[in-house]
Structures are given as structure tokens and as C-alpha cells.
């Protein structure tokens, strides 16, 4: 069951590569939240109940509901246009993300340790690099934040791989959400959408050498 959920998660990364609209990105993030809820529930069922509840609530309330809704609200309030504006055509994005997944598969073959299941490693690393790829190839500030959220989901999967032995590390991963909320609040409070006209990283080029 975990493997099925992890595979669906990987497919969602490919969908992220070809999605045109910001709203689709937000929906993918919400779906990933639900998948993480499922994986965490199956994997961590043995740990202490209070901690498990905390982790599950975090995935469902924050990752699946609060952050996507807030992103949608910011989009409306700051009047951000709905296109994702990638630098590269979507077809190339799809190929690159596929290559990322294949590369992590090959890398995972070098693992000799039997304790860590390879599929967690593969999915987590491909999510991480897909997130970095999205940050590097999209114009808008809000897509950068979404890329960061994708990276964070990858890290969460990786922490689940040791979740049974060290649940503390899963809790630490939750602290990363603080950063994401700082970004979102930063866009929200400063109305980066209004101040820097098009919410485009091209506006962030006055500091250079």
C-alpha cells in the first residue's frame, strides 16, 4: 500500500512538470498532502499515539487544507496572473523530471544498507530535485514558494523512512513548515504582488555586482 501511494506521489511530480496554471499546482500540493497523510499513517502506526496524531493533523490540516487555501487567497488578493510562465517548454520539463527520477533510481542501486527501503530514497530525492528544478525554471515568486513546498514534501517522505526509530526527526521536519509560512506571510503582508509589479523574479535584479 505504501508503495502504491509513493508511486502516485511520483506521478504527481510528472504532472507538476506539465501543468500550465497556478491553480493546478495548488491542487497538486493538496493531493500530495493527502498522500503524505496516508503514507505517514501506514508507516508510523507503531509510534506513540499523541505524536502520531500531531503528525497526521499536521499533514491534513496544514499541508492539505491551510497552505493551499492560503495560496489561493494570496493569488486573488495580489492579482497574480494564473499562468505558471516557465522558461522551458513543458515537454522538456517532462523529460527532465523523468531523467531526475531515472537518475535517483540508478543512484539507489548503490545502497547496500538493507534497513532503509530504497523506494523512500528514490521518491524523496526525485521530489527534492524536482522542487529545485521548478524553482530554477519558473518566473514567479509564488511558484518559487510552491517549489519550496514540494522540496519540503520530499524531505517529509525521507524523514518517514526513519520515522519508526526516530520520530523526533519527523517532528523536526514539521518545523520547516514555519519557514514556508514565513514566505507566505511575507508575500501576504508586503503585497509583493503590488509593490514589485508583476510578481516576477525579473523584478528582483537590482542587487547585483
Amino acid at each position, binding site marked *: 500500500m505504501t508503495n502504491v501511494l509513493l508511486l502516485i506521489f511520483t506521478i504527481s511530480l510528472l504532472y507538476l512538470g506539465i501543468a500550465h496554471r497556478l491553480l493546478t499546482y495548488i491542487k497538486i500540493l493538496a493531493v500530495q498532502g493527502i498522500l503524505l497523510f496516508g503514507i505517514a499513517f501506514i508507516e508510523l502506526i507503531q509510534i506513540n499515539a499523541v505524536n502520531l496524531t500531531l503528525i497526521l493533523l499536521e499533514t491534513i490540516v496544514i499541508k492539505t487544507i491551510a497552505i493551499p487555501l492560503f495560496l489561493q487567497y494570496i493569488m486573488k488578493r495580489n492579482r497574480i496572473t494564473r499562468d505558471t510562465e516557465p522558461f522551458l517548454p513543458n515537454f522538456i520539463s517532462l523529460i527532465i523530471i523523468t531523467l531526475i527520477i531515472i537518475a535517483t533510481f540508478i543512484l539507489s542501486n548503490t545502497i547496500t544498507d538493507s*534497513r532503509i527501503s530504497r523506494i523512500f530514497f528514490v521518491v524523496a530525492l526525485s521530489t527534492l530535485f524536482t522542487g*529545485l528544478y521548478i524553482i530554477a525554471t519558473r518566473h514567479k515568486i509564488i511558484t518559487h514558494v510552491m517549489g*519550496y513546498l514540494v522540496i519540503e514534501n520530499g*524531505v517529509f517522505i525521507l524523514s518517514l*523512512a526513519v520515522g519508526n526509530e*526516530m520520530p523526533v*526527526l519527523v517532528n523536526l521536519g514539521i518545523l*520547516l513548515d514555519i519557514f514556508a509560512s514565513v514566505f507566505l506571510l511575507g508575500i501576504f503582508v508586503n503585497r509583493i504582488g503590488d509593490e514589485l509589479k508583476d510578481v516576477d523574479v525579473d523584478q528582483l535584479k537590482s*542587487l547585483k*555586482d
Partner: protein
Amino acid sequence: MEVSMTGIYLAGALGLAALVFLNKNRIINYLLVIAFLFLQVGFTVYAYMHFNQTELHYFTFDGLGILLLVTLTIISIPAVYHSYIYLGSKQDNPGHTAIYFGAVIILLMALSAAYLSNHIAVTWIFVELTTLSASALIYHRRNNRSLEGTWKYVFVCAISITLVFIGILFLSFSLPQAGTEDLSFKNLISKGNTLNIFWLRLAFIFIFTGFTAKMGLVPMYTAGIDAKDKAPSPAGALLSSVLMNVGFVGIFRFYTVAANTNIHTWANHVMMISAILSIFVATVYMSRMKNIKRMFAYSSIEHAGIIILGLVAGGIGYYAAILHIILHSFVKSSLFFQQGQIYRVYKSKSIYDVGNYFKYNHTGAIVMLLAFFFSSAMPPSGLFISEFMIFRALFEANYLWLLVVVMILLTIIIWAFGKNVFKLLFTPPVEFKEENIEKINPMESLSQYILLGLVVYLGLNPPQEFVSLIQDAIQNLPH
């Protein structure tokens, strides 16, 4: 439950910061900040008196922690004083002043805790806290450019802190199955030979890359430059001295773990590549830099590279690296404090708008001249001693080609730095109106003289306690 001083310190600092945030009265805020300074000094003295004791399970007063804590406390007092001058001169909104001082208190508290932490996850939490508080300082001027600087800084630091977290996860994979789940540095060092090499290598790459954002090394140095440029100069002094040290603590403590395993040579090569690229980047940018503050920031990149080279070289280089980072903190913070005065005279950071500084601010110009000589490691600067030891260690470790490259790059840096500093000090500025120049009180430069004096004293005639603390810090490294 036993009451520990660390607990009192953390709770006290948080409480004072909350009071400063809530309070809008200027005088009461200054009193609260002074109260925090007393708490900071008291905690530092307490830590020194209780050498090698562990409190709250996660904080140990070891050699490295105490050295950097004392450095932080020494720099924090002039930093608060210069912030007071800076904020007083701008007639700032009291709310913004409150946020500024509250962020300073949180930053200093988080840095102190991160220095003393003996557990990699606890270090990680407090490093995360330093990013949040530093971003409030960078954003202080609230214009588009500072917003841009803050955004870039927070984003790059968030990515880097995520990389460190991934490194910690890989590190937990590398632990042997035999019942140990303890990620404290002490346990990791003692279990060094049983760690899984594959996961440890991945962990080293991720943790090192993550902490380079704080320390200012290739690849993640970029955000720090914008941050130091856009932050008010007293905050810039903190960012380029004590905040850099927190990156060093992270790298150094984990390097100590790696040095006791089979990946020691490999880790040295990784760090060497990063260090040499950092010095190269600093050379390239400093030779064409026209913004004084950014030039200082790139000078920090250069010194961070030299410090890492000290670790790579080993032997006497370990000692020299610790000495170098402490002395560099004093020199660089006094340069940034002085930069605040330069800005008040010329109202500009560009090298084209400044000049003939000796005429307008005699005391400050002498600080500038001395700090330039000290920063480029000319005697009697203590940095001369530490750089000389690092070069000797490189020579002894058969890195002769590396030494030659580094020396050529450092010569170019001294030329570039000197060209701009002498322009600032002696060449008359073009179209500069002398009527409304702000008179700078010479007493404002006193703290810089004290810091520079410390650099000479600690370099040329280090007290015995200082030497033994450094030796304690490097005792776990293989000699």
C-alpha cells in the same frame, strides 16, 4: 526540577524580546536591551566558570562554544551602542525600532544557544531561528531593495536549512543498527568507525552545503552578500561576524565527526574545493567592486575560505582556523561599525562619492586605515599570525601548489581592497558639498579601537586560558 542557568538565559532572553516587541516607549526599550546585555554577560561568565559542564541535556560549555560565546558578547555591546546611534539619527518609527531590538535579542540568544549545543538537531533548530531574526534586521529600512535582499536571504537560507535537515536524516541512516539513536556529536565521534560510509558521505555533502549559506562559502554565499549590504551597518557587523561563526560551528562540529571516520581525506577534498572557489570568487568581485559595504562582505568570503583551508591542512592549521575566525570577527565588525559613520558623512556607499575621509573624520579615518591593514593580515594584526600558521600547515601537508594559488589571489585582494580604501581616505571626492557634513563624535570610534586592540593582543600575546580553550576545541581532531 533543578534550575539551570541556560534555562534562565533562554527564557529571560525570550521574555525580554517579547517585552521589547510589545513596548513602544523608546526609553523603556533601551533599558530592556541593556538588561539583556547584562543577562548575556552574566551567562557568558557563568559558562566560563562551568567549563565542560552540560546543562538541559543539550548544551555543553565546551572550548569552542565558550570562545565563540565570549566573542559574541564582546561584539554585542558595541553593536547595541551603534544601533542606538543609528536609530537615533534616523528618527525612526518607534514600532520599527522595537522590532529591530527585539530581533537583535532573539538573534544573539539563538546564536549563543547554537554555539553551545552538543546535538546536531538542536544546532539546526537554533540556526533556523537565526535566519528568521536576521531577516527582520535586514528588512529594517522597508524599501524595495531591502525587501529584495530579505526575500533572497530568507529563501536561500530556507533551502540551505532544508539541505542541512536532509543531511541529518542521512546521518541518522548511517547510524549502526546496534541500539543507538543518539545524534549528539560526542556519541557520533565515539561511534565513528561503525557509521555507514555511503550515508555518511551523503550527509557530509548536504550538511556542509547547507551551512555554507551561513558561513559565506561557495556555493551558497550569495544571499549573505545582499543581506550584509542591505542591513543597517550595526546589524551588518553582526551578520558578517557572529552569524558567520554559527555556520563555522555547524561545519566544524560535523567535520570533527567526519575526521574520525574513513571519509576524512574525501571530506578534506570537498572542503578544499569549496574554500579555493570562495577565495577565487572573493578576488574576482573585490577587484571590480564599487560598493564599500559589499566589498567588506566579499572580504568575509575570502576569510571564510582561508579558515576552511586551515581545517583542510590539519596539524597547526586546526589551531590557526579557530584563532582566525575569532580575530576575523573583531576586525570585520569594527569595519562595519566604521562604515556606518562613513555613510553618515557622505550619504552614499559608492566608492565614487567618497574621498578625503581624513579631512572629515580624523579618528574614524585612522580606524579605517588600521582595520584595512588588519583585515589584509599585515603585522601587527593577529590575523597575520593565524594566516601564517595556516600557510605553514598547508606547506607541511604538501599542498604547495594550493599555497601558491592562494597567495596570488590574496595579493590581488589586498591590491583591490587597498585601492578602494586609499581612495576613500586620501583622494578628494568629486562634486562633494562640504556645508552640511555631520560631525562625528570621536568617542564613537572607541569601540573599534578596543576591538582592533584585542586583535593585536590575542594574536601576538595570547593568554594561557585562551590557548587552552582553543586546544580543547580541537582535541577530538586527529593530529
